[in-house]
């Protein structure tokens, strides 16, 4: 850290400058600075929803782009997500209090037989960072657990992850069961994991294969927008 950095006083920046600085601070994973800036914006009478979307979500969107493009890697993204979380911790009760609109709710977990969860955790963090509500079922989920959680949580999106070529076919079992129960079209189904590809995503009847966490977020936003249009 140079002296110049220490001299930066967030409260002296105007709103526009401060928001841009927050994007940078998220990018650099500076959690304390993010928390301070969130408090400053709230003190300046910003709505919690505006702080979330214009400062935090937009900042994480930039992180997501650079992760997708191979400029940032997992350690930097984890740091950024940690800073985002610190900001969200302040905002969450206020968002509920003010009845702010929600982007959507996702149920996520690795499929039965698969215990590899680093990728799934990243997606969950990035989705939360993008303002989605995420219900994380953890590892090794049988089809019943996914379906029970989707119904219980009134979720919009199902996210399934598999790292092994031997466990990825189970995604089809889950989707086939949803079709049998007549609930497939009630949810957006996104799949991901190292050995998957787009062709596989199509073959098993998912809505989309997501190459990485950043793509998952963009795809989820896109499908939610379509869903709203259809409903409206």
């Amino acid at each position, binding site marked *: 850290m140079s002296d110049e950095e220490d001299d930066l006083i967030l409260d002296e920046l105007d709103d526009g400058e401060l928001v841009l600085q927050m994007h940078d601070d998220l990018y650099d994973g500076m959690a304390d600075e993010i928390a301070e800036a969130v408090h400053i914006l709230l003190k300046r009478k910003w709505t919690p929803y505006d702080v979330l979307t214009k400062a935090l979500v937009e900042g994480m969107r930039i992180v997501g782009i650079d992760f997708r493009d191979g400029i940032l890697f*997992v350690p930097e993204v984890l740091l950024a997500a940690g800073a985002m979380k610190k900001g969200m911790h302040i905002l969450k009760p206020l968002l509920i209090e003010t009845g702010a609109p929600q982007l959507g709710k996702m149920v996520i977990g690795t499929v039965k037989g*698969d*215990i590899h969860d680093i990728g799934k955790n990243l997606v969950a963090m990035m989705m939360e960072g993008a303002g989605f509500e995420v219900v994380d079922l953890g590892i090794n989920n049988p089809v019943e657990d996914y379906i029970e959680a989707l119904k219980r949580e009134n979720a919009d999106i199902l996210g399934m992850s598999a790292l092994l*070529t031997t466990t990825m*076919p189970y995604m089809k079992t889950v989707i086939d069961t949803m079709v049998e129960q007549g609930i497939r079209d009630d949810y957006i189904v996104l799949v991901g994991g190292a050995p998957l590809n787009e062709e596989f995503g199509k073959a098993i009847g998912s809505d989309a294969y997501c190459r990485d966490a950043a793509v998952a977020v963009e795809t989820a936003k896109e499908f939610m927008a379509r869903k709203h249009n259809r409903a409206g």
Partner: protein
Amino acid sequence: MNLLSRLLDERDWLMADGATGTNLFNRGLEAGEAPELWNVDQPSKIKALYRDAVDSGSDIFLTNSFGGTAARLKLHNAQHRVRELNKAAAELGREVADKAGRPVVVAGSVGPTGEIFEPLGPLSHAEAVEMFQEQGAALMEGGADVLWLETISAPEEYKAAAEAFANIGAPWVGTMSFDTAGRTMMGLTSSDMVDMVQGIDNRPIGFGANCGVGASDLLRTIQGFKAANPEVPIVAKGNAGIPKFVHGHIHYDGTPELMGQYAVMVRNSGAKIIGGCCGTMPEHLVAMRKALEETPMGPPPTNAEIEAVLGGFSSASDGTGDAPLPKRVRRRRK
């Protein structure tokens, strides 16, 4: 001197084995089951797996112990069986290797813990060293010639394993998986890995890349190692193509012929130990051995030649070389 170091001195190249998981699933392992339990429950199937590699011409095979750290076995509630399961994996290997009629290296496979290191994650350096040491000691006790760390993403984890293996005086090889825009998931480039390996006190006797995306990316990684002038021999263990979903089953699209071409190209690129990873079956190994024996050394393939034979790269750059790295300009602090 350990057998692997001796063979490396004597030979121009050595062939390692293929897939463990893919082969075990073909033998009836169920998804979600810990393969390591078979070292005790189905020893004849594990010996058959090892024998397939030996019979297909492998000079080295890896034991069925990839998920044998306490961290991984815990997911199957078998964290108290680390010594038993790893020792058995190596003992079965010793038995097969000693009957091979030629020198074959039993390499005790050690995979990642699956945990993220502090401060970003929960795993401390001391805990990681302890787990690798526990597993490594059991593999050596069971008769492994060397330990073989593979599919690592984080430099911290690689170094923790090096320290653990130094504590028990075990010779070792260590490879990482370069699956994210030509780097490991944690952002390490091929040249970064060379720097790391050369700086380790307990240097491995071989280092390199395994698994990852496709054979093309792996070749580019091997050439990246070579360009950094490593003093340690290079290991290449690539997947047999890309997994495809055919008639309800997963099938890797790399043919034996293609893997033969991959083996020659990767040797020409500087690898001294050559093998396969996921999807690599005995027929692939036979084709690789034949191609390696029948094809004279040649110049390293160009990127265009790699793409023409093995398919395109997953990213334009792999973060090495002279091309300026893309960087986002920050406003003040950085």
